[in-house]
């Protein structure tokens, strides 16, 4: 039952980049890049099985043991705080979690700060450390419009180039933490498939050094 190392990849460009690193590290499965409608692909010779899953679900698959290994953004790890090992910074998908506000914004400390975000736990933790009283407005998308239409004072969101913010009259006022894709592992899978996990880690490190 242990013959396959199960790896959850986030659907999209980040997952494709991560797969490229994995196949160079000795875990190829060529069908991964041409899956058709299939979401589970395996290479018996290499002892690896890949799943394509929604990026925000990768940590759940790994924490619950459906996957032994996963590729997950630091933003999701901070938000969901899954009980997993974080084995490596893959150095891809770099961006940052930031606080943004309309140009010229100043924080009025006499009032509760209204914060719109998809990352409620991240925002709460950030402002708790700063001792700032906030009102979280949880949104599932288009967070940038919240300050413009008066729904929130600031937003806490992922910023890559800042173009979307600028086009909506917002600017970054604070970086919360840098983000990149991390290699995560299920705690039990790490132990029972240790040889394969170690081989993957060594392969990834060697590939990074060869760059």
């Amino acid at each position: 039952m242990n013959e396959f190392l199960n790896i959850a990849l986030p659907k999209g460009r980040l997952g494709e980049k991560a797969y490229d690193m994995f196949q160079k590290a000795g875990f190829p499965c060529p069908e991964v890049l041409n899956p058709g409608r299939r979401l589970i692909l395996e290479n018996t010779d290499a002892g690896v099985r890949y799943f394509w899953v929604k990026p925000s679900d990768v940590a759940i698959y790994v924490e619950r043991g459906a996957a032994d290994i996963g590729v997950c953004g630091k933003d999701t790890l901070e938000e969901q705080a899954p009980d997993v090992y974080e084995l490596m910074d893959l150095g891809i998908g770099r961006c940052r979690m930031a606080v943004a506000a309309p140009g010229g914004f100043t924080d009025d400390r006499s009032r509760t700060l209204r914060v719109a975000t998809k990352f409620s736990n991240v925002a709460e933790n950030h402002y708790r450390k700063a001792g700032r009283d906030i009102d979280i407005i949880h949104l599932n998308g288009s967070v940038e419009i919240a300050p413009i239409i008066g729904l929130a004072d600031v937003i806490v969101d992922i910023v890559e180039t800042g173009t979307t913010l600028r086009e909506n009259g917002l600017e970054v006022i604070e970086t919360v933490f840098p983000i990149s894709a991390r290699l995560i592992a299920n705690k039990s899978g790490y132990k029972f498939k240790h040889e394969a996990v170690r081989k993957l880690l060594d392969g990834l490190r060697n590939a990074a050094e060869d760059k």
Partner: protein
Amino acid sequence: MNFDIQSLTDTEKITLSLRNLYASYGYRLYRMAKFEEYELYAENKDFLVSQNVITFTDAGGKLMALKPDVTLSIVKSRRDDTGVVDRLYYNENVFRRPKGSQNFKEIMQVGLECIGAVGDRETAEVVTLACKSLDMLGRDFIVDISNLDVVNTCIGLITDVPGERKEILKRIGEKNVHELSAYAESKGVAAELIGQLMELAGLYGAPEDVLPKALDAARRVGASEAYDSLAATVEALRESGYYRNLRIDFSVVGDVTYYNGITLRGFIDGIPECVLTGGRYDGLMERLGKQSKAIGFAVNIDSLERIRVPSAGC
């Protein structure tokens, strides 16, 4: 009494088998009240796995709680006698709020506590019983073992600020060596110390592979005594047949206020989470004003729900 063992569920069979195992080693069943004064948990919040507690006011106006933990109640009520070894086991339900859930859950635990004049012999006995507990489930199992004092001595050289210790422990627990290094650098920690901590945090494997590597790092940070105690405990299991199930893992961490010395985590093949947690907790004893030493572990019965019990196991 007419009784058919086949009428029991698998988790009931596991529970009874564990109780039988502990009783055969001279452990006595310890029954406790369902409720406990809330104050006990408020004062030892960091000892609890889940800090949310169900409370209510009793008829006398006292704030009470449904037990979120068993060890605290046993330790509190036990007479402090350092001259004897008390061997106790329990089969109790605790009430906790699982991570990510808004609701409380009733969780069944079976475990044991060895309290009093606890020495190397008792420590080896408890580790052996932890292995036997998992072995009876009929699947491949691994027991991660560490001595918290090795890592804590190293962290002590870096900082004694509780918040900073917590940040470092969190990253060690995640095997997050890359962030551990960045965090230590940001705090101006000497490169040599960072290297030693990273080396310890990254070690994992069979005792014969890992202990020689850990010896050097432990000596350099002044944790030779803790290393020796870990090596002696592991060595004591060499003849038991469970030596091959042990893995040395310094990422097993715990709050220094409560835990010290040997620490255990048990895993079963096919179950994604840790099913057995335990170790030495002399710090908790001290906090509760006791001179006695203590070691114990708990098996989370709920996490074993999906296991099919081998018929020879009962």
